[in-house]
């Protein structure tokens, strides 16, 4: 898999910038793409789309429930709406509208949750979202995506626009290492083995993919670690995941989300049925966040390279 050359010295870029740029490109490719936002235009980076396609941009105000329903109505008329707000409101506030008006009705709506995980750091735990993947993963007809970085977010928008059906994509706010490149392929539903190893597999998503790669690097000579980027939480790439678990026999999951119901939950469910092995989950341990800088919070609540290393060592 094609990655950046110097892992220790990555460029720092925000996923949401990739999203905003990708959205403009999706708008250029397909005139049915429309964008709805709940009073967070600039921070969701949908301002780029607004500038390019003002007539296809809809400011919905601070009314996420209505926004989701309006998008469902638009989708029923053949438009491809992207619905934007912070993850804690979208799908947090409007989950029931997502369930009935979008998923049960099979409407082609794309939901994008910004500032997921500790993204809203200093704003406090009230708006930090660690439950969104769980909330969306449980819905039938849903596709759930977590890009690892800027490049992946950009490619994901285009892939989402082409996929017919409801999709949720979550992103964090701060700048994060760019691990993939323009040339790294992306197929929805296909997990990526970023680094091959024989003793432990780390299944990671989002910005934790970079932390997993660092952990693997640091353990060279001690433990042979495989790192898999599971950017599609649903549908889960059963084949790649089971094959890797079969090869290494030990599994760590890493995500900036609750260990309940997210990537860790999904992998544990899959492996329990298909190929039971020991699993350690790195992520938010059934807690709410608090005020702080995202990096301070990630360290305090245990979502770092060091936590991944600790989990790997517990398995060996």
């Amino acid at each position, binding site marked *: 898999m094609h990655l950046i050359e110097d892992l220790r010295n990555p460029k720092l870029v925000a996923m949401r910038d990739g999203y905003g740029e990708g959205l403009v490109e999706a708008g250029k490719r397909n005139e049915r793409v*429309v964008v709805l936002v709940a009073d967070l235009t600039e921070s969701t980076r949908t301002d780029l789309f607004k500038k390019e396609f003002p*007539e*296809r941009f*809809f400011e*919905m*105000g601070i*009314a996420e*429930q*209505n*926004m*989701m*329903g*309006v*998008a*469902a*109505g*638009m*989708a*029923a*008329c*053949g*438009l491809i*709406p992207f619905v934007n707000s912070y993850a804690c409101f979208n799908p947090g506030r409007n989950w*029931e*509208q997502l369930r*009935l*008006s979008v998923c*049960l*009705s*099979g*409407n082609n709506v794309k939901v994008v949750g910004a500032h997921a995980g500790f993204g809203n750091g200093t704003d406090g735990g009230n708006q930090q979202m660690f439950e969104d993947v769980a909330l969306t993963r449980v819905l039938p007809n849903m596709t759930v995506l977590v890009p690892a970085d800027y490049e992946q977010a950009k490619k994901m928008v285009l892939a989402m626009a082409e996929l017919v059906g409801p999709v949720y994509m979550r992103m964090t706010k701060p700048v994060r290492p760019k691990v993939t490149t323009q040339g790294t392929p992306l197929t929805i539903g296909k997990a990526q083995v970023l680094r091959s190893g024989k003793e432990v597999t780390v299944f990671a998503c989002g910005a934790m993919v970079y932390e997993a790669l660092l952990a693997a690097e640091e353990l060279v000579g001690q433990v042979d670690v495989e790192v898999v980027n599971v950017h599609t939480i649903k549908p889960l790439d059963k084949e790649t995941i089971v094959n890797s678990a079969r090869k290494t026999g030990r599994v760590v999951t890493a995500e900036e989300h609750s260990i309940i119901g997210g990537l860790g939950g999904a992998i544990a469910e899959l492996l329990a049925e298909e190929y039971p092995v020991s699993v350690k989950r790195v992520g938010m341990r059934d807690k709410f966040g608090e005020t702080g800088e995202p990096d301070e919070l990630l360290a305090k609540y245990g979502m770092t390279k060091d936590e991944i290393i600790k989990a790997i060592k517990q398995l060996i």
Partner: protein
Amino acid sequence: MLPVSMDDLAEKANLLRAEVVKMLTNAGTGHSAGPLGSADFWTMLYFGGLINYKANDPWWEERDRVVLSAGHYCPILYAVLAEAGFFPKSELATLRQLGSKLQGHPVARSLPGIETSSGPLGQGISQAVGMALAAKMDNQKWRVVCFMGDGEQDEGQVWEAYLCAAKYALSNLTVVIDRNNIQIDGHTENVMPLDSLAAKLAAFNFNVVEIDGHNLMEIKEAYERARVTFEKPTAIILRTIPGKGVDFMENDPGWHGKAPKLAEAVEALAELRKIRTLGGKITND
């Protein structure tokens, strides 16, 4: 569409009421009061020439979109759609049965003529707003009608949707609210006071028309006024009697979410044969 007289339509409304009673009795569960109370409106909407549709081409691109937001009213909509020829009348007997297309609450496109999923209240109006926005964006002439209950107005999402409809000046949207003053827990004014609904909607920048929901002529005129109103969405408040046409059901909140038992159905059907609604008045044959 062939011109039909108001008398014929009133008679059709009563036949559809009888159909609803039979469907609900057969199913054993379901909502009686709202579907019976709104039968005159639904009859006028589909058979009085108010909207464009093709029963043999249910997803015709240029059709007017009818969004049932208050999903529990579906027995009357199912009966009307079958009467209009969207699907065979024989399917009405399958309401609420396993494997039926006539789900207890409607599921989008599961049945010809059903545009959205509803039941959980307040969601249809937002989808109707989305459809009206899409029509406007694409310069389409078709219109959107959204039917809601008055209890449904308790949902916050409804008012979010009204703000949005007014913002985008959705003159192609007509919201119809069945003001029958009942909801599951009792009279609306005891559960969560709603008066004055007309003043609230006017303050939200709607063109508001309040009418006798059993007067077919008033329904027709109200819809025609909506069609010639520009710059604003229209809200038609239908003042109706819940359970209309069946004396022991009328105005009783107990019949909001209940289906008649066999003996009650026999009595209800006998009453519906005797009573006809003409210009809002009840006359006995």
